[in-house]
């Protein structure tokens, strides 16, 4: 969903750039706490993996394609602050090196595919974790649900930005229906990929997954109780 230059007017692009800069500032502060011995090595890999996977457009209905955004995946694997930094690096490299997503639209793309997907993905993931049993087998499904919702809300956020500063007037209800419709399908692909990746890492090294920490901690506690 890389927004090219020209879709949104200058004031809106400036505003999204300011919002992106503010969020990156917060993430830079927050990431210091997340980046411990377990998260730090994984973070660079997460950014690389998101970049690689974003090249893989999968077909959805009617001659349309979509690709992983990866914000929810990054938030679950390395934490939301570090996750946003990973997403920002990917989006900046894509814009500058690959002309994928505009330059004046870079702030917009960081808002849509970085901030919204990371924040929504993380919030839904944590929300699900609160209500389901604290088991490792629940981490990947919770991440997948977060991924699905994050894509749909990201597309809705684009419509909100378009309402503020879309250059060509379009009926907004039509735009909202079309964007949500196609991104519901893309969101299912996002959920499937996120599930697969999170489940794979949880299966071999759950301690490396930021979002599995609470569950791992609970398990350790139970072991000690039995042992005593």
């Amino acid at each position, binding site marked *: *969903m*890389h*927004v*090219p*230059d*020209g*879709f949104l007017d200058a004031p809106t692009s400036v505003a999204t750039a300011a919002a992106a800069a503010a969020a990156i500032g917060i993430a*830079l*502060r927050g990431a*210091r706490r997340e*980046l411990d011995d*377990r998260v730090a090595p*994984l*973070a*660079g*890999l997460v*950014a*690389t*993996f998101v*970049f*690689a*996977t974003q*090249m*893989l*457009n*999968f077909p*959805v209905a009617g*001659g*349309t*394609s*979509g*690709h992983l955004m990866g914000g929810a995946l990054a938030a679950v694997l390395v934490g939301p602050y*570090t996750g946003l*930094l990973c997403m920002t690096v*990917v989006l*900046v*490299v*894509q*814009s500058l*090196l*690959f*002309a*994928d*997503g505009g*330059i004046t639209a870079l702030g917009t793309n960081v808002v849509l595919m970085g901030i919204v997907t990371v924040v929504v993905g993380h919030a839904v993931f944590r929300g699900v974790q609160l209500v389901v049993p604290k088991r490792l087998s629940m981490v990947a499904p919770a991440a997948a649900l977060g991924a699905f919702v994050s894509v749909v809300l990201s*597309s809705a956020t*684009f419509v909100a930005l378009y309402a503020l500063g*879309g*250059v*060509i007037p*379009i009926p907004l209800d039509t*735009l909202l229906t*079309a*964007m949500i419709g*196609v*991104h519901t399908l*893309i969101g299912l692909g996002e959920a499937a990929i996120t599930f697969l990746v999170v489940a794979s890492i949880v299966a*071999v*090294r759950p301690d*490396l997954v930021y979002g599995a920490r609470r569950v791992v901690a609970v398990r350790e506690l139970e072991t000690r109780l039995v042992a005593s």
Partner: protein
Amino acid sequence: MRAVSTRTVLLIGFLVALALAGVVSFYASASPDGLNRVAGELGFSGAQQSSGTSRGPLAGYETVGLGNARLSGGLAGVLGCLVVLGCSSLLLLLRRHAPEPARTGGE
């Protein structure tokens, strides 16, 4: 059960990323993505302006000067992986060793 070392997880993950960007990407769908499709159907795709970086050597995930689509796209993907890994690792390394902010004074 023998635990898989962190080094192994990172290495396998990186090799998978390289394979996806370097090889599998050739088979990715070339159809317009969700946003471009909607823009075309609703008639605002005309507002799109060419990016200032669209004449760069890797623009559009194609390596300039390489005629073979498989090589051109694959090399662009691999180079992209290396650049993203380098930039993100550097940023996070700097963040990790950044000094704690002074606790005095209100936020």
